[in-house]
């Protein structure tokens, strides 16, 4: 599995960087925040991203995708992390489309994937029910009703939940409350009767929502995959999400780190640049070492999605755990090394700090992934 980008991927990275620097710099996120934008992202920007092919970057060509693979997606995610670009790329394309691709029927795929790839349709995954990631702890129920189902329950931390056109709801159809067995996935319109959606304003000024499902009817054609066996789809979907998000986190960490190193060279105190102080040099050098490790882990994990899926669970947990710790360290150090200006809203470093905290909780914190890695290794 190559750990070096090929020419096509390097070109993609350069294009993405240029595009995002001109069209979605951090000031764009600041504007969305300050104007309390109801959508939470710029729909015109999303259309431009779709025209570049990003909304279908991992999808097969038969559904209008680019079939660039996860390494290509990772390149784009990383660049999005550098400018903190807000868009439905993660929730809709990485997570939503993966669920359909891995578990959907031919009808579902043909009906929905092309409009996801064109950027017209967006999806969101309604999974979490508590304030910690516990993907098998599902109490939301889906009861048989005639040909279809009736859903009841509450979901939280649903990324893009208030803006997506359709929701993929993780619900229990059998089994006990803490088991992966008996989970099923359902596709429904976000504006279906009984779906109550409240946007939550989070630290990163991006999109999330709480969703209440109140006797929501879903037809049998809304089931994704096999009844009671949704975990077989959900787990690989979550792993794809973890790996792609880790790539975004890499970009976020790199940008915050590079801005900090530049500041260390520029800021003068005691008549010299503060970057000449060994106390700061060693901390910066340790972060560089961590960045090097994370770079290798991410490339391996992205490659595993397409080439060695049997290794994906352990690599996804390695990547998410490592990147959680990286963004925490780097964002904290970025603020500290900027000194007083680092805690002002005027400096953009604060946006990186806040985005880092949200990404650390999405699809598993460090403890979750350490436990999973240890369990997969048999201890």
């Amino acid at each position, binding site marked *: 599995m190559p750990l070096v980008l090929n020419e096509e991927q390097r070109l993609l990275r350069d294009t993405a960087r240029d595009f995002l620097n001109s069209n979605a710099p951090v000031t764009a996120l600041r504007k969305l925040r300050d104007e309390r934008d109801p959508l939470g992202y710029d729909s015109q920007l999303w259309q431009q991203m779709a025209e570049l092919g990003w909304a279908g970057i991992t999808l097969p060509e038969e559904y209008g995708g680019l079939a660039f693979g996860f390494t290509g997606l990772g390149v784009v995610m990383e660049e999005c992390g550098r400018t903190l670009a807000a868009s439905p790329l993660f929730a809709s394309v990485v997570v939503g489309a993966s669920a359909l691709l891995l578990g959907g029927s031919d009808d579902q795929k043909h009906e929905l994937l092309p409009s996801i790839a064109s950027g017209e349709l967006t999806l969101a995954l309604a999974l979490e029910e508590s304030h910690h990631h516990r993907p098998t702890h599902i109490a939301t129920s889906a009861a048989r009703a005639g040909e279809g189902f009736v859903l009841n329950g509450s979901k939280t931390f649903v990324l893009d939940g208030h803006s997506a056109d359709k929701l993929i709801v993780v619900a229990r159809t059998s089994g006990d409350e803490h088991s992966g067995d008996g989970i099923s996935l359902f596709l429904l319109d976000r504006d279906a009767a009984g779906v109550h959606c409240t946007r939550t304003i989070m630290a990163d000024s991006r999109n999330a929502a709480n969703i209440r499902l109140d006797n929501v009817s879903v037809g049998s054609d809304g089931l994704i995959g096999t009844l009671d066996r949704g975990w077989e789809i959900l787990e690989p979907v979550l792993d794809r999400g973890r790996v792609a998000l880790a790539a975004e986190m890499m970009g976020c960490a790199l940008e915050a780190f590079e801005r900090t*190193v530049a500041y260390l060279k520029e800021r003068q105190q005691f008549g010299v640049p503060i970057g000449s102080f060994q106390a700061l*040099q060693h901390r910066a*050098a340790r972060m560089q070492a961590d960045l090097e490790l994370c770079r290798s*882990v991410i490339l391996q994990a992205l490659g595993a999605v397409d080439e060695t899926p049997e290794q994906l669970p352990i690599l996804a947990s390695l990547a998410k755990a490592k990147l959680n710790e990286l963004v925490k360290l780097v964002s904290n150090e970025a603020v500290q090394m900027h000194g007083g200006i680092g805690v002002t809203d005027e400096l953009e470093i604060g946006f990186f700090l806040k985005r880092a905290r949200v990404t650390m909780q999405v699809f598993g914190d460090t403890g979750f992934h350490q436990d999973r890695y240890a369990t997969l290794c048999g201890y």
Partner: protein
Amino acid sequence: MQDQEQFRREVRQWLQANCPESQRQPITAAEQYWGGRRGSFPSEDARLWYERMRDRGWIAPEWPIEYGGGGLSDQQARIIKDEMKRINARAPLYSIGLWMLGPALLEYGNEAQKQQHVRAIINAETRWAQGYSEPGAGSDLASLQCRAEDMGDHFLVNGSKIWTTSADKCDWIFCLVRTDPKVKKQEGISFLLIDMDTPGVSTSPIELISGESEFCQTFFDNVKVPRENLVGELNKGWSVAKALLVHERKLMAELGSDSPRKIVPPNEAARKYLEFRDGRIVDARLRLDLVEYNMQMHAIALTHFRGFEEKSAGVRSAAPLVMKYLGTEAEKTKSELLLAIMGSRGLGWEGDEFTPEERDTLRLWAMSKAMTIAGGSSEIQLNVIAKNVLGLPQAGGT
């Protein structure tokens, strides 16, 4: 790619047929073959294995054929290494000459020096010691004081070198010596090869906290060294030294991942010494320490691999520069983790109440403390990263 797969198959077959079964077991210090005039093979199989590898040209597969190397590409050399690792094959020759001096001689040595010394390294005729540090020059290596006076056809060397590994068993030593005391410190240093049988050279061992005395101090008292033993130009030894240090650091970074040793891997130790319930380690803290260590090693292994791929693809990155720091720190973490997992069983210094593996674990724990000091301490590594990778301005001194 096709050719590489073909080559891999050939290597696999050859190793299968030629590597004796006894040479596919984890190795102890006493079982290593270091060559040299005073060296002897620890066993008949070790001799056989070394000679077969030498005759095949695989002691130094990527070195030029005219000096006894295999003339293979870096990729092919890597394949041989991978395949040896796959069957746990021991290194046929342990050699400072092979790992450190040889690559530097190939880059900086003149034709006569390459003819004389490179083949002798591969043929295990000379065992080399390294003469860099001095009692007064450790991390600040460039402040070294061992003098070599230019007497025309020879140099007169006076001073001493410390941490000269196994110098009491070595035939030659490569040294950094001061040839011009009047200029800025890096600029007056030269690189000399010294035959340790020369009158005036003497060596005494140093006992370490591990109980071993592998390291020595070597003294030079009016030692006459012929002028042809100067490597590179006069007063330009610092560039040779830096090139050689890169090899040393790479070696140290890989020690943990490459050499099979008689030490219990942490996962196995956990199964042997810790309580499990429902397939999980009961002690939450140790379970966490173990998973953090394993994740770090996983990431380090992937980064070694990435570094190699980047080198083959001609892509430059900072990965090689951080590996000595990461690799040696991880080795130290491993030793601390093993001691914690083994509890009082990990504290046995000698005697039959403890197994040899248990005693070795403790000795290696003590030895691991040296890994983040030797070859440029972790602090020096961080200085290098700050300067060469991040381009941060230098505080006073270098």
